[in-house]
């Protein structure tokens, strides 16, 4: 194994689960998520020396995940895919949370258009700022703000139930 292979393998071993989770939230399907992760990591391997020198591996792979998701959505057979046909396969809930409320958020997330879902995942799961999200998606900050607003309005119904439960 070369130095490049070793450094790449070490990075992948540490970050692959997190990348898969992001892809899973974006695609809503474990198989498509794996496709997205594989595509992103393959691109990362090719660009590894350059991005490692620039100390921007995380940023590069995050953009690669998003771009792979965009590319994946452009494939003709994906355009015909129905929404909401793949619920989480695992039934293990996070500590202190009921399965139902996660399913409700999951379903609501999957109903969002792909662009809004990308904004939600980048901003609220990856924790990026409006500017960083705009740079990753190659759109204006205004677009990010408007898509976040629309997405939140859609998700608010689900979240409102959670807020109500919290307050009682």
């Amino acid at each position: 194994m070369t130095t490049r292979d070793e450094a790449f393998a070490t990075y992948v071993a540490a970050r692959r689960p997190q990348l898969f989770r992001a892809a899973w939230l974006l695609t809503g399907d474990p198989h498509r998520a794996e496709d997205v992760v594989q595509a992103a990591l393959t691109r990362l391997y090719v660009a590894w020396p350059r991005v490692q020198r620039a100390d921007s591996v995380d940023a590069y792979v995050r953009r690669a995940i998003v771009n792979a998701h965009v590319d994946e959505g452009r494939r003709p057979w994906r355009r015909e895919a129905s929404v909401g046909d793949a619920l989480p396969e695992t039934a293990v809930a996070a500590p202190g949370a009921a399965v139902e409320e996660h399913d409700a958020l999951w379903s609501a997330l999957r109903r969002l258009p792909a662009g809004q879902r990308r904004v939600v995942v980048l901003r609220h799961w990856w924790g990026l700022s409006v500017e960083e999200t705009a740079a990753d998606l190659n759109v204006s900050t205004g677009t990010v703000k408007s898509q976040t607003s629309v997405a939140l309005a859609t998700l608010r119904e689900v979240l409102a139930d959670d807020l109500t439960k919290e307050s009682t």
Partner: protein
Amino acid sequence: MNDTDLLTDRLHHLGDRAPVPDVPTTDDVRRGRGRLRRRRLAAVAGTAAVAVAVGGVALAAGPGADPRTRVDPATAPVAQQPSAPRAAHDPVAQPGKAPSVRIGGVKVGAQAGRATTLQDLLALSSALEETEGKRVYGLLAIGQADTWAAARANTCPTGWTCTPIDVEGAQRARRATDGTTTQAVAQFPSGVAILTLTDAAHFPAVLPYAGAMGKPQGPAGGGS
């Protein structure tokens, strides 16, 4: 907690439930290598066309270089020979003259069981591209040596910056540059390959690896 904080919290809980597959990292490395190999093949196909247009020059053993460095022909340093093909002398640049093609060469056929392979050159050129970027050079030369010592790869002349580089499939590899000319040398199981690239009109009389440039080859079809 407001609704955006709540969304962040809920998304992380949801992400924690993702059915993360147990995929060996070696699979990702293998896929990456495959893509890199395909990319290099495409790049070399383009480079080969450029190399034919520019004209190849064989590397020769300079004074003091190990005689086992194979060249064709290997007679004298470039300073005592006609200059390498230059853009100003290129018939392509002269209206009214039919363009010709110059092809140089170095014997790389299996001698003592060793031969530079296209795969070696792919890996070496790809590693150089990673350090140099997608630059366009005036002159390009390909060379071969039997051993690391014959290629003078252990030395670094004054005025040159020499650094180790990572070349796929190579046991060791180094790059040397003086800002205008860049050389890369790599030791493969099949032998030692040397690439030389320069922005100058001529190769320098003295090079870090292999010592000096050999006699330029004449135009294809005879005559020089």
